[in-house]
């Protein structure tokens, strides 16, 4: 009965041992013969032009091999062409943001390169700039771009005439991904234009493609290795100019070059979750039926590349409501271009929408959970399609029981014990149940092992572990006999790891490969007069085959056209707020995942726990602070940019609905990387309101805001 096999928690991460013993090798740890070290020189102004760049002292410094900048335009054929939006590093004297790389110094040791980089002197012609979203919004002359087509269903701004309504503004600061592993790359350009890189990337094929494009060399000449990634959260979803600079440098000097950027540079040149200002208007009948949703968002982008994300998506379908309108505007400011950060725009949007839902429930004097259940949609009104699966009502109940929702009082500030006030909050999260196209190769061997290969990544979710479990279930091979190879661009192609799609996309291809291997074995068994239940090892031996191989490409079929497919989560938070000091202590978290069948319970739980921790950061502690007079970050280090520490993280209970959705993919499983975080910050803000009566609409919720 393979179909009903319960996957227990004892299925450890396949790479867990390597990771905790230091055996996992990350990009910066590769020691190539003749390796040299790059260090970036960065702009100290925010906008303008470089008028001079003196590299003489740096070039004379001990151990220095080369200094590359716009003055010597190191070879990158694509950059010689006119136009194109990505920043052409070292092909322009223009400064778009403070901290922009303007030169790379390569030396025979890291320390020498660092010292020499300090000797490069630039002068600039400064121009007026703005790094402040709020200021840009007030300035009617400041450029604003449509980030997504306006959406309207029914009457526009219907909330304004509703029996009960709220209209509020919500503000998010810049949040920086800040994975523990610093960004960078090792590039090794060899004669005949053969390039090998060791990268920190969420997509080895994407990195390979970008390098091929910029340098105009055949894709097969480029080998990208990225077996282990020390966290990405979205920031390694593209190949950044600094990586191109390193490849340029290696091409220029004919030696491998390693670049690892500093923690400070992590704030400026590898993206962020952009600041956003959102206006939400909600209206309902007196008995709590939503009659109007208006969600208008303004998100930061850069002046040299546009960046958009799904900030207002959720408003269009999450609740039953006939009148919905949304708009999303991007506002270019003089900062480095943002990039998706876990949950991306949906997490930004959910803070506003799910706070507003709580505010309206309060206006209606309704339990916010009852209010959500009352407005839970039967179908997707935006797409006019049924949901492939949605079990939110069950999820609400399970989570409410676990957190002890019945102890919650609807009147804020009701639960007081000494100086501490207790409150409960809830929020929904939702994200597309994406599935892309991927290929997987399976090699089934007579020694009883299975090797699976695909050019996907593992930035932490446990890709190999999940894939092993899918194959184990289908072929009845213990996971200890299965190896999943990834992070290598020469393997069968797969998309980048992002958008919660890896398990669905690669897993489906693993499924198809295993099904094919199974039928090949059955065929071989039949042809050699063996019992249909014969073990594959025996079948292969009988046929004198050391192994059999199958490669399959897999993607969705037409079912995607007929259904609306989403993963859902519900976050419950219990907080204690100190009435004198404004300190918020989270005492309990319950996260419920409604994301189809759970393939790998341990790593799935880990995803949800990690998402909640990321959510704590977004809600309580994380903010990249700029001094807008200078366009420079103030708290660009791990002491002052506060990611949550263990002491901030309470008991987290994770519940899964665990019902398969076979419309999404053959495993019936949906992704959960994003839903683990989406909505969390609103649940926390709602809990703080319930505890204190204070509605904090500007993240993060720090003690000063509670006391204000």
């Amino acid at each position, binding site marked *: 009965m393979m179909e009903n096999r319960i996957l227990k928690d004892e299925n450890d991460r396949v790479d867990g041992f390597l990771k905790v013993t230091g055996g996992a090798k990350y990009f910066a740890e590769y020691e190539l013969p003749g390796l040299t070290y790059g260090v970036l020189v960065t702009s100290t102004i925010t906008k303008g032009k470089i008028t001079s760049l003196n590299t003489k002292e740096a070039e004379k410094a001990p151990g220095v091999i080369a200094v590359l900048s716009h003055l010597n335009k190191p070879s990158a054929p694509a950059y010689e062409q006119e136009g194109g939006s990505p920043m052409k590093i070292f092909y322009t004297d223009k400064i778009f943001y403070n901290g922009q790389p303007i030169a790379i110094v390569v030396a025979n040791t890291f320390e020498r390169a660092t010292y020499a980089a300090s000797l490069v002197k630039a002068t600039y012609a400064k121009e007026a700039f703005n790094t402040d979203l709020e200021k840009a919004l007030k300035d009617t002359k400041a450029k604003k771009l449509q980030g997504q087509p306006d959406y309207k269903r029914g009457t526009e701004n219907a909330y304004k005439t509703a029996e009960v309504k709220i209209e509020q503004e919500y503000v998010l600061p810049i949040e920086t991904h800040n994975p523990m592993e610093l960004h960078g790359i090792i590039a090794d350009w060899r004669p005949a234009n053969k390039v090998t890189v060791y990268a920190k990337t969420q997509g080895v094929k994407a990195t390979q493609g970008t390098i091929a494009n910029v340098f105009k060399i055949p894709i097969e000449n480029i080998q990208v290795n990225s077996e282990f990634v020390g966290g990405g959260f979205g920031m390694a979803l593209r190949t950044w100019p600094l990586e191109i600079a390193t490849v340029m440098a290696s091409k220029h000097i004919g030696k491998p070059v390693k670049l690892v950027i500093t923690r400070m540079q992590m704030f400026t040149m590898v993206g962020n979750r952009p600041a956003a200002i959102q206006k939400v208007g909600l209206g309902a009948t007196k008995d709590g039926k939503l009659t109007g949703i208006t969600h208008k968002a303004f998100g930061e982008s850069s002046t040299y590349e546009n960046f958009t994300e799904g900030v207002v998506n959720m408003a269009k379908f999450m609740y039953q409501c006939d009148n919905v309108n949304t708009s999303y505007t991007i506002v270019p400011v003089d900062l480095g271009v943002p990039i998706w950060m876990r949950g991306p725009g949906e997490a930004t949007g959910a803070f506003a929408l799910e706070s507003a839902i709580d505010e309206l429930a309060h206006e209606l004097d309704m339990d916010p959970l009852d209010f959500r259940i009352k407005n839970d949609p039967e179908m997707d009104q935006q797409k006019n399609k049924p949901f492939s699966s949605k079990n939110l009502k069950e999820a609400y109940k399970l989570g409410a029981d676990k957190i002890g929702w019945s102890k919650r009082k609807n009147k804020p500030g009701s639960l007081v014990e000494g100086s501490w006030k207790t409150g409960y909050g809830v929020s929904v999260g939702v994200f597309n149940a994406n599935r892309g196209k991927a290929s997987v190769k399976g090699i089934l061997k007579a020694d009883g092992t299975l090797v699976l290969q695909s050019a996907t990544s593992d930035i932490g979710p446990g890709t190999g572990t999940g894939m092993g479990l899918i194959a184990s279930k289908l072929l009845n091979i213990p996971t200890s006999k299965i190896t999943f190879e990834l992070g290598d661009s020469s393997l069968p192609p797969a998309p980048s790891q992002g958008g919660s799609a890896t398990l669905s996309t690669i897993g489906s291809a693993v499924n198809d490969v295993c099904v094919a291997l199974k039928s090949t074995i059955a065929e071989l068994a039949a042809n050699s007069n063996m019992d249909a239940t014969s073990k594959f090892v025996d079948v292969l031996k009988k046929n004198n085959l050391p192994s059999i191989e199958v490669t399959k490409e897999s993607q969705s079929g037409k079912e995607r056209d007929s259904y609306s497919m989403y993963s859902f989560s519900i976050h419950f938070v219990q907080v204690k707020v100190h009435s004198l000091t404004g*300190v918020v202590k989270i005492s309990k978290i319950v996260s419920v995942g409604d994301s189809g069948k759970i393939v790998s319970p341990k790593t799935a739980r880990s995803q949800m726990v990690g998402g909640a921790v990321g959510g704590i950061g977004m809600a309580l502690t994380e903010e990249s602070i700029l001094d807008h007079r200078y366009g420079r970050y*103030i708290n660009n280090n791990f*002491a002052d940019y506060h990611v949550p520490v263990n*002491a901030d993280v309470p008991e987290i209970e994770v519940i899964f609905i665990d019902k398969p959705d076979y419309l999404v993919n053959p495993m019936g499983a949906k992704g959960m990387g994003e839903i683990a975080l989406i909505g969390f910050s609103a649940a926390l803000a709602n809990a703080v309101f319930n505890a204190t009566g204070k509605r904090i609409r500007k993240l993060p919720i720090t*003690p000063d805001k509670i*006391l204000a």
Partner: protein
Amino acid sequence: MINFQYLRTTTAKSALTLLQKDKNAKFLGGGTNLIDLMKRGVTAPEKLIDINHVPLKQIELVGSKIHIGAMATNTAVAEHPLIQEKLPLLSWALNAGASAQLRNVATVGGNMMQRTRCGYFYDTEMPCNKREAGSGCGAIDGFNRMHAIFGTSDKCIAVHPSDMCIALVALDAEVVLATPKGERKILFKDFHRLAGDTPQLDNNLKADEMIVRVEVPLNNFAKNAYYLKVRDRASYAFALVSVAAGLELQGNKIVNVRLAMGGVAHKPWRLTSAEDFLKGKEATTENFEQAAKLSMTGAKGFGENDFKLTLAPNTIIEALNLAKSKA
């Protein structure tokens, strides 16, 4: 980082001699702050004199004082039975600071010498009078959420970042310094300075002097003491406001009291007027509130740190209440 010479010595005397030879030399203790500052280009000593092997790690009772060597690590002090029994306030304050990893290498002397965490001080591309005299203060009209509300000057509003020092100033500690002319003593409350017109100077240690030890007189505050640190996350964050409170109670009467505050000034901020007010009074919330109010005389916000004008008195009240209820 700029190249520097590394020297190691094993006696206080030779350390002092090496220091006097070179104006641009600095002592290296745990290095948890100095190395950061060197990496950021804030400071560039030509010589580092490693004093980690100088035998100044004692933690002992001498007469009626507890002597703590300048090279004792923060962890060693915080976990020492003598400190935990006689000076628990110091132990708690130490454990409220930094992270376990930092405390394991950071020394008492280094803790006293650590520099402000003001972001403008750390960024050599921004103005800072403390780093570069006359370049201006970025914080006064900039990001000053973490900054001082007491004893500020128009040159600098940075705060002293230590937790340990708040407890030591509350506990009437003295600092023993080795000088070319022999030892000298200075009250802990006089060791650090206000910024005034010389924000580049954090303290009154002279260029040719070395911290040898700290002496803390025995007291009766061990029973009713509390170190309350309010911060943006539960650990590994600098104080928005912290309060070290020690009460000596007879019944509910305050026989003696010590109060000091962190995160509010360029030096550990002793609250003497609140102490004077509370001495001899009943330990009631009303009196604590009155004391907190008195403590705020002369406080001034700079915009983003205005919340400290509310948070500081609140934290004093809460710390006193918690100290009282310890027994």
